[in-house]
């Protein structure tokens, strides 16, 4: 903390500042994020975020589409963890319409969400490494992510945009080799995580680059309503899967990966290294959930049977949320009793988490800004909607 203070003090020495536009076309703004950065030599003195370059009017579209048709649109918000986007929306509509789903559907949903969570975290850790200049682990993780996507493609038919969850069930039933595939995948993920930890996460250069960089204190994180790994790395024990166990999460044995004061391996609570570390730990937890889930997944049962032709929704409103890999993904659905929702507001985790960026970037080096941005793990589809 002291070092940051020193840097800020130093940067107050009157000298010429340079304003740089980082983005919307820049290799490591993870899409079309634009940051107007004022730098003093190498030190960032101010960052003004500009978003909206990928705005696709999700909420406006929802006012024109019926409840089934919105699902493909939700896929396209956070396009690297689509399953986790669909789920809270489906939960919201099911809660409104009072639809109960069978146990098999719930377990299958958990499997899909956890597979997608691993895929998302692999992508995030990979790009985080890439932003620090390590290219090799990036491709190893991408290779592994392919296996997750292959399983999800075999399940749903889509590679990235699944449209697999449906109100009242799932679009397609499981396929016979699912359990075998997941076992092999979990084994692979564990191997790769060990490799990536050795090559990247524990590497001294990487630790020096990321530890104690971009510290997000607990109270600030809470005030900014950060969620997901960003909040957990700051010491906030907030994981919806544990705190408000939706679906069948209470049947699984797993830990929330919270970085607490005094337990850090490197750096301090709330820095970039720990945000990344939470994701690495969560991959292992998701593996555990997957292993337990395939044990209790029933083979029999029709998952498509419960899907109504037309969703009948009474007047009302509901907010449903789920733990997506980026954080708390929620939908506030207001219905006026018709086939089409009156309002479908989306709380996307990236949008909320990104808001704290200008605060924690101030006073760090220019290269750190990229690292911090990468550690927050935004997807511009999710930010701009």
């Amino acid at each position: 903390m002291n070092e940051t203070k020193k840097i800020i003090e130093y940067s107050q020495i009157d000298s010429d500042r340079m304003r740089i536009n980082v983005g919307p076309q820049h290799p490591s703004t993870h899409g079309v994020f634009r940051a107007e950065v004022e730098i003093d030599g190498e030190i960032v003195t101010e960052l003004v975020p500009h978003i909206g370059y990928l705005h696709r009017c999700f909420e406006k579209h929802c006012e024109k589409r019926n409840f089934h048709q919105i699902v493909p649109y939700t896929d396209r918000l956070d396009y690297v963890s689509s399953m986790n986007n669909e789920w809270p929306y489906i939960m919201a509509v099911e809660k409104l319409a009072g639809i109960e789903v069978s146990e098999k559907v719930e377990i299958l949903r958990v499997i899909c969400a956890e597979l997608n969570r691993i895929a998302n975290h692999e992508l995030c850790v990979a790009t985080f490494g890439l932003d620090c200049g390590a290219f090799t682990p990036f491709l190893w993780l991408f290779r592994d992510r392919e296996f997750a996507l292959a399983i999800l493609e075999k399940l749903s038919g889509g590679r990235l945009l699944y449209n697999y969850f449906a109100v009242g069930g799932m679009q397609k039933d499981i396929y016979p080799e699912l359990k075998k595939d997941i076992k092999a995948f979990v084994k692979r993920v564990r191997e790769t995580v060990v490799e990536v930890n050795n090559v990247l996460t524990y590497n001294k250069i990487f630790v020096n680059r990321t530890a104690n960089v971009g510290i997000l204190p607990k109270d600030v994180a809470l005030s900014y309503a950060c969620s997901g790994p960003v909040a957990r790395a700051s010491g906030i024990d907030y994981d919806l899967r544990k705190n408000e166990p939706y679906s069948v999460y209470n049947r699984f044995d797993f830990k929330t990966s919270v970085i607490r004061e005094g337990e850090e391996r490197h750096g301090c609570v709330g820095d970039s290294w720990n945000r990344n570390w939470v994701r690495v730990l969560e991959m292992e937890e998701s593996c555990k959930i997957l292993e337990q889930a395939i044990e209790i997944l029933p083979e029999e049962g029709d998952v498509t049977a419960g899907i109504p032709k037309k969703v009948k929704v009474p007047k009302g409103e509901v907010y449903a949320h789920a733990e997506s890999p980026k954080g708390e993904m929620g939908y506030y659905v207001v219905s006026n009793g018709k086939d089409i929702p009156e309002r479908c507001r989306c709380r996307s985790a990236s949008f909320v988490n990104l808001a704290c960026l200008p605060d924690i970037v101030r006073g760090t080096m220019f290269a750190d800004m990229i690292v911090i941005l990468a550690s927050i793990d935004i997807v511009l589809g999710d930010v701009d909607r």
Partner: protein
Amino acid sequence: METTYYIYNLIANSTTELIAAVIVAIIPLLFILPYALVAIYGELKISAFMQDKLGPMRTGPYGLLQPIAEVFKLLQKEDITPDAADKPLFNIAPVLIFVGSYAAFAVIPFSSYFAPSGLNVGIFFAMAISSLAVIAIMMGGWSSGNKFALLGAFRSVAQIVSYEIPAAMAVLGIAAMANTLNINTIIESQSGWFWNWFLFGGQGGIEKIWVIPFTVVMCVIYFISSLAECNRTPFDLVEGESELVAGYATEYSGMKYAMFYLAEYANMFVAAALITILFLGGWSSPLGDILNGPIWQLAWFVIKTMSIVFLQIWVRWTLPRIRVDQLMFVCWKVFLPISFVCFLAMALARMVQ
């Protein structure tokens, strides 16, 4: 050494001295161009295999023609000069950077029968002339009229100038041990079996064993400093893709960019060759007098140098990038003190002899 100018004399005797000088000057160029193609291909393939990919596979068998295709691609590209650029400087920079790395070849002996120049202060010349890259990069970065390029150039100057010092300490140590600045003499003083290399303490019997750790550390320091001088990962923050787009080369395209590209690989070779000369016995065979003919010497030299180049590539595709303040920390607070200690030890070793 009387055989250093063997090829020069051979040509000069049959024609004129001028023609001989020109031919001898061109020989390194004839070496650099195919070497760059091999190095680019090697880098593509090695990095690809490390990442479980196949690398280039489309151009020719196993993608062997990929570097040539890339050269043609760069040649065809439109040569863009930005409006905001300072045009003369912008155009000179790529030439200058290549001049720097090419001139360094003047003193590199490929074999005991061929060195373009057997300069008495050869190692000093090589150090000095390869620093020309700083000016070229600064020119390129500043004249581009691009903020990212400017930042990259700033970083580059700080980096290369700083890392000259540990590198120079290493060279000084070797110069002290060999008692000369002449590259050929340095190599000759390492002749014999491989334990005579300066990496293992130079000539002398078992009593020199205490100096080995110092020379090894010095070699590592020199290797890392040379990485920094070539702007290779983990010190590529000059062009650090994720931060500065492409650093000083952001605005360059086409042939000018190709010059930067070529200079980078030529620089890598020069750095590797200097390590070979200083620590690994240059062209001398590791097996004493066995396989020590002029052609074999060339082969040994290339093998040793290319192993160092492989090491550079290997390091590049493993390590993440360092930050600019840490870069300075490593240089001034770690390498400099250690290299001083090592230098003293090496000087002591000379005195004890």
